C-alpha cells in the first residue's frame, strides 16, 4: 500500500521540484529565447525575458551565411551511419552471447567493456596519423568508422542485457516445433527484441550526435558535423549571440526530443547494467 502523503507535503515537494527543474532547464530556455531576439536585444542589459521583438531572422541568416544544413546533414549521416553499422555488427554478437553462452562469455563482455574505458586522447596521435596517411581526415567515412568503434561496446552490452531478458523456454518450444534457426530468428526473436533494439538505436544516435572529441579533432569543414560547426562560434569577435543561439537550438532540438523518449534506457546503457 502506498504511504499516505499529506496534501501539504505534496504541495511543498511539487513547488520545490518545479523550482529546481526550472533552474536546471533555464540555460536551455534562455538560449531558445535569445535565438528569437535581434543581436542587439540578445546583448542588451537589462535583458528582456519575453517582451522583445520576436524575430526568426537568425534562423534564416544561419542557413544563408554558414550553410547550416550541410553540417546538419553531416551530423545525420555520421551519427546514423555509425549507429547502424554498430548495430549490424553487434546484433549477431549479442545474440550469440545471450543465447549460446560459454564459459568465456563473461570475460569477453568485460573485456569489451574495458575497451570503452580507453581514453580517446590516448590514441589520438596514431589515429590522426593513420587518417592523415589514408586521406581520411575531414571525411564522413573516417568519422563514421571511429564513432562506430567507440560505441560498439555500449551497443553490444545494451543488446546483450535486452536479449538476456527474452525467456529461453520460448526458443526451446519453437525448436521443438521444428523451427529452423532462421525462422526462430525472424518469427520468434525479432518481435520480442524490437523494443530493446529501438532503445539501443536511440541512445547510440544521441551519443554519436553529441560526440565532440573525434569530431573536433578529425574534421574541419567538409565533413564537420554540428558539434564542430557550433565550435566555430567560439571566436570572440563580433556579436553573434542570437545566431549562436539559433544554430544551437536547431542542433539540439531533435536530439532533445529523442533523449526525452529514452531516459530509462540511458541508465541501462551507460551503467552496463550495474544499476537497475
Amino acid at each position, binding site marked *: 500500500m502506498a*504511504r499516505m502523503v499529506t496534501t501539504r507535503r505534496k504541495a511543498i515537494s*511539487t513547488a520545490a521540484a518545479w523550482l529546481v527543474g526550472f533552474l536546471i532547464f533555464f540555460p536551455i530556455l*534562455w538560449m531558445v529565447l535569445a535565438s528569437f531576439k535581434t543581436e542587439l536585444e540578445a546583448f542588451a542589459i*537589462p535583458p528582456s525575458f519575453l517582451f522583445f521583438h520576436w524575430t526568426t531572422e537568425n534562423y534564416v541568416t544561419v542557413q544563408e551565411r554558414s550553410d547550416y544544413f550541410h553540417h546538419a546533414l553531416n551530423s545525420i549521416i555520421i551519427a546514423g551511419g555509425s549507429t547502424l553499422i554498430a548495430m549490424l555488427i553487434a546484433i549477431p554478437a549479442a545474440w550469440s*552471447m545471450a543465447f549460446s553462452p560459454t564459459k568465456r562469455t563473461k570475460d569477453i563482455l568485460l573485456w569489451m567493456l574495458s575497451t570503452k574505458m580507453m*581514453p580517446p586522447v590516448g590514441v589520438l596521435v596514431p589515429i590522426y596519423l593513420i587518417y592523415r596517411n589514408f586521406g581520411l581526415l575531414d571525411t564522413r567515412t573516417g568519422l563514421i568508422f571511429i564513432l562506430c568503434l567507440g560505441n560498439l561496446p555500449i551497443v553490444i552490452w545494451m543488446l546483450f542485457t535486452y536479449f538476456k531478458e527474452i525467456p529461453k523456454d520460448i526458443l526451446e518450444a519453437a525448436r521443438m516445433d521444428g523451427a529452423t534457426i532462421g525462422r526462430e530468428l525472424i518469427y520468434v526473436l525479432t518481435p520480442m527484441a524490437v523494443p530493446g533494439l529501438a532503445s539501443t538505436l536511440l541512445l547510440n544516435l544521441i551519443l554519436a550526435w553529441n560526440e565532440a572529441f573525434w569530431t573536433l579533432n578529425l574534421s574541419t569543414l567538409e565533413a564537420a558535423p554540428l558539434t564542430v560547426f557550433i565550435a566555430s562560434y567560439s571566436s570572440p569577435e563580433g556579436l553573434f549571440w542570437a545566431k549562436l543561439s539559433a544554430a544551437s537550438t536547431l*542542433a539540439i532540438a531533435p536530439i532533445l526530443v529523442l533523449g526525452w523518449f529514452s*531516459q530509462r534506457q540511458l541508465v541501462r546503457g551507460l551503467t552496463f547494467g550495474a544499476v537497475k
Partner: protein
Amino acid sequence: MATQQTQLLARTLLTPAVALLFIWMVVPLALTIYFATLHYNLLDPGSESFVGLENFRYFLTDPAFLASLQNTLVLVGSVLAITIILGVPLALLLDQQVVGLSIVRLMVIAPFFVMPTVSALVWKNLLMHPVSGLFAWIAHLFGLPAIDWFNEAPLFSVILIISWQWLPFATLILLTALQSLDEEQKEAAEMDGASAISTFIYITLPHLARPITVVILIETIFLLTVFAEIFVTTGGGPGLQTTNIAFLIYSQALIQYDVGSASAGGLVAVVLANIVAFFLVRIVGRNLEA
C-alpha cells in the same frame, strides 16, 4: 550434433565484433607505445630516431604536466562532489509525489542531451559574460560587482559548466536506484517510529552506496578526458589554468606536432583511466553473476 552446429554458428556470429574491437584496442595502442619511444616531430620530417624513455622523462618533468595533472584532479574531484552532493537530494525530491513529475523529469534530464560545444558556448556567452551575461545583470541587481568568470576563476567556470551537464546523469541513476528501494522497508521503519532523518541514514543511504560508486566510476572515466568544453571556452588558458591532461596532449600533438611527447602523454592518460576502469569492471562483473 545440433548443439555443435549452434556453437559453431554462435562463434561465427561473435567473431566480427571481437576481431574489430581487438584491432581497435591493440593497433592504435601499440602505435602510441612505439611513437612514445621516438623523437618524432611532424614539423621536422625525416628526423625520427629512437630515444627510449626520453619522451616520458620530458613529459613527466614538464611543469605543464604537473599543472595539468593537478587541474585534471581538481576538475574531476569537484564535478564528482557537486553532482553527487546535489544529485542525492534532487533524486530524493523527484522520488516524492510531485504534481507534473514527468515534466519536471524532462527539465532535469535535458542538459545531458545538449552537445558539449553548445552548453559550453551558451554558458560562456549568454550567462557568464562579464558585461552582458545574465549573471552579471543579476549581480548588478543585488549591487554586487560583476564577476569576469573566465579570467578570475577560469577552472571553476569550466567546472560549473561540466557539473551542469553531469548533474542529470547522477540524478537519473540515483533516482532509478531509489525507485527500486523496497517501500515496505521504509514503511516498517516509519511505523517503528524512525524519524525521516534516521530512515535516510540507515536505510536510504546504504541502499545508495552502490549506485553512488557507479556514478563516481563512470563520471571519472568521462571526466578524465574532458576536451570540448575547454577547447571552445578557454583553449586551456589563461596560461595553463584550465589545461587538463587531455588538452595538454592535444596541444602537443596537433599544435606543436610533437608526436613522441604527445604519445608518452597519451600513455599516462591510459594508465590513469585504467586505474579507475579496474574497479568499475570488477563491480560490473560481480553484478553479471548475480
